[in-house]
């Protein structure tokens, strides 16, 4: 039975290796066609016009913009929720809040997208008097909501993992509850909390369906959150269907996939490092 488990584990690694190999093999061709500089720093993404242009800078800009927007929304809110659940809330409220946040994580992204198109989009349109509610702000808001469960549950775990003695010592020295949270608990849990931010960021940058539906998908350099933007993920989802296998457009989309993979890998490695540091601390 044990060897069967090993086999299953191995097949998972092999699947990952195959996906990676495929991603890079199909994608690297575009560099030879348009050049590294024009691919990463080209300012125009217009793959179906004649002649086509494959600059992914506006797409990277779009991805970074919504991710930053999502974090600006989900970090303060997530941290506040985590502190409240871990330290302040009475048991009854905590038993209600924790599952509520977890349910938020279980809502399919297409439902968030639909909500954005039908409710928050038109609302933003009236609120800011903009021509369309499909914009970076709408996408940021929804992605922030989607990253919230990640941030709350990991931060809350980090706060709860701090030995009880820390809090007791602080209170015994005469510090108030709030002073204890602010000066003892938060610093002690900081690496876990930062790790939750990074994982939440990974969630926001990789999300596809919701941004596809609510961000408007115009591949421009937006200078304001009230303008539409296009992310890396949405580009792949929008255009993969039409590309002829092996064409430059097809290769460019795979290369975008590789770029996304590297970005997420980077965030995950950083988060993992921090988590290790966090474990070391209380040995």
């Amino acid at each position, binding site marked *: 039975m044990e060897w069967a488990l090993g086999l299953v584990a191995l097949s998972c690694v092999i699947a990952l290796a195959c996906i990676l190999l495929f991603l890079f093999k199909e994608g690297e061709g575009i560099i030879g066609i348009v050049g590294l500089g024009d691919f990463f720093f080209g300012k125009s993404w*217009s793959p179906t016009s004649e002649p086509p242009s494959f600059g992914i800078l506006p797409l990277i800009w779009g991805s970074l913009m919504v991710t930053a927007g999502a974090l600006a929304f989900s970090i303060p809110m997530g941290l506040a929720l985590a502190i409240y659940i871990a330290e302040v809330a009475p048991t009854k409220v905590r038993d209600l809040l924790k599952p509520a946040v977890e349910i938020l994580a279980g809502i399919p992204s297409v439902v968030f997208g639909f909500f954005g198109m039908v409710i928050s*989009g038109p609302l933003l*349109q009236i609120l800011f008097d903009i021509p369309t509610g499909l914009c970076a702000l709408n996408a940021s808001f929804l992605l922030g909501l989607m990253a919230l469960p990640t941030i709350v549950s990991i931060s809350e775990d980090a706060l709860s993992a701090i030995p009880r003695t820390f809090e007791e010592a602080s209170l015994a020295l005469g510090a108030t509850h709030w002073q204890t949270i602010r000066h003892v608990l938060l610093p002690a849990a900081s690496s876990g909390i930062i790790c939750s931010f990074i994982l939440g960021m990974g969630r926001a940058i990789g999300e596809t369906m919701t941004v596809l539906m609510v961000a408007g998908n115009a591949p421009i350099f937006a200078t304001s959150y009230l303008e539409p933007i296009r992310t890396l993920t949405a580009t792949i989802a929008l255009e993969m269907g*039409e590309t*002829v296998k092996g064409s430059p457009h097809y290769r460019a989309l795979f290369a975008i996939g590789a770029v996304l993979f590297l970005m997420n890998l980077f965030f995950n490695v950083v988060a993992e490092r921090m988590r290790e540091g966090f474990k070391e601390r209380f040995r």
Partner: protein
Amino acid sequence: MKKLLGPLAVLVLAGFALAGERIVLQGSTTVFPIAQRCAEEFRRLHPEVNISVRGGGSGVGIAGLIDGTCDIADASRPMKEKEIEKARRQGFTPKEFVIARDAIAVIVHRTNPLEGMTLEDLKKIYSGQITNWKALGGPHRRIVVVSRDSASGTFETFNKLVLREARLTPRALYQASNKAVLLTVAKSKGAIGYIGLGYLTGEVKALKVEGVYPSRETVLKGTYPLQRPLFMYTRGEPRGVVREFIQFVLSERGQKIVEEVGFIPAK
């Protein structure tokens, strides 16, 4: 564990036996409602045949036909030279069937006072030369250009009929389905978009193009300029159930369905 294997194998085998013949249709989201309804009716006549219908866009369907992952490709544009060549290399020449006609309706928000525009104006809007409704005699409001994604046959047909050589403005919003375009235009005051005639509802206002309102009559008469045939492609001359299915779609019954879901019969 071993006790379960026996019955499980029987079940799996029985599943294969019952499944009988299979038809897989894939492609254009415009053709999708026709394919879907026809498949439902066809299943009633031939309960032993297993039909699955998938969307994804014309390009996806044609790529599937070439790769052999589907038997019929639904398309809202004719196959490209490159695609036919690829099919030949796979050892077959795709067979084309015109199964319906469709008009692309140009839609705006219900409150838009404009009744119609010329193809030239439409081109100017979609290429980004006109960016405000004022230029066309409307209110002072920025135009929100909504386009389909480049994987859709509707996008390609619209580009060919309206934009011709011009580049689509980079400011255009891209939406991934007819329904999404409809919803976006219905919810944004300054928006303009285009959808298949079958998806037109009272939530938006359809514009006259070159003075002609999109309708069954104007498309059949050939006066409405934004129209196109819809296709199904098979791997060479169709045989067996695939042939029967195509015949069903082209039959009186099938063409009635085409009308019921909002398109215009092929003949």
